[in-house]
């Protein structure tokens, strides 16, 4: 059963959200979804970019002013 895991990266400085995302994704199983919560404008670009290059399905949604949720489905 695919699970959904939230990763709170609010208030983190560059490049912490990306590093935490990489580490968290390693621990997930195929098909799991990691929801990365960020409020950093750089991260809303570099996290999806990295995840897509790794081959995962990525979607990003702006949930509030300056806050985003990045949904990464581990596919590899």
């Amino acid at each position, binding site marked *: 059963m695919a699970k959904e895991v939230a990763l709170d990266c609010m208030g983190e400085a560059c*490049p912490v959200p990306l*590093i935490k995302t990489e580490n968290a994704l390693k621990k997930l199983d195929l098909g799991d979804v990691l929801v990365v919560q960020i409020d950093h404008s750089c991260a809303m670009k570099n996290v999806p970019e990295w995840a897509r290059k790794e081959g995962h399905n990525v979607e990003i949604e702006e949930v509030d002013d300056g806050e985003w*949720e990045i949904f990464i489905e581990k596919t590899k």
Partner: protein
Amino acid sequence: MSESNTSIRTSSRARTGTKKKKANQLPFGVVLIAGMIAFGIYLATISAKLALFWILGGCFGFILQKSRFCFTASMRDPYLTGSTSVTRAVLIAFAVTTIGFTAIKYGAYIKGLPIPGQGYIAPISLATVVGAFIFGIGMVIAGGCASGTLMRVGEGFGMQLLSLFFFVVGSLWGAHDYGWWKLNFMMNGPKIFLPDVFGWAGAVAVQLLVIAALYIAADKWENRKLNADSNH
């Protein structure tokens, strides 16, 4: 493919059920534009130069924020995350600016006018080496370089406001020690303006070739990491 998209969508709606109603900040932006124009007009009454610098700064800040441009990332990511997209963009900036700057400088040169911006041809010495190295450490730890720190202050990051304050303190400290560095190192350091070595056309050609080579290397580096991962 669409199945996995559906599963993401479902969790998105479930998760963001607690979504707050987004405020619309555009009115604040419009008010700020008015304020910026007013301040610019005020500056122009003191001198046109101040108004010009105000406009240029505003443009740089706007561009930096919109493109999330970060020199820190260009230097840090190849090592830390294996990504070179920002690095390659910075190389493009170097190339394009080189061409524009050289055009201006050469134009002045052939007219027999003083070449603008030559103050930025800095002497190369241990001071350059040490300064660049510690700046590199500092910018990664602080989460932003000089331009990046200013940009993030504008975006509301408290951490960079603190970083800016200590950047100022560090600058004062550096200014205090500057005389010592100048006497012992900078004074003996050569200022090397590449056209003096390669000629104008040669210098531009060499520099653009170096930039192109670095670009290719950066591209290979990013894809090398991915190829390595996909072999697992």
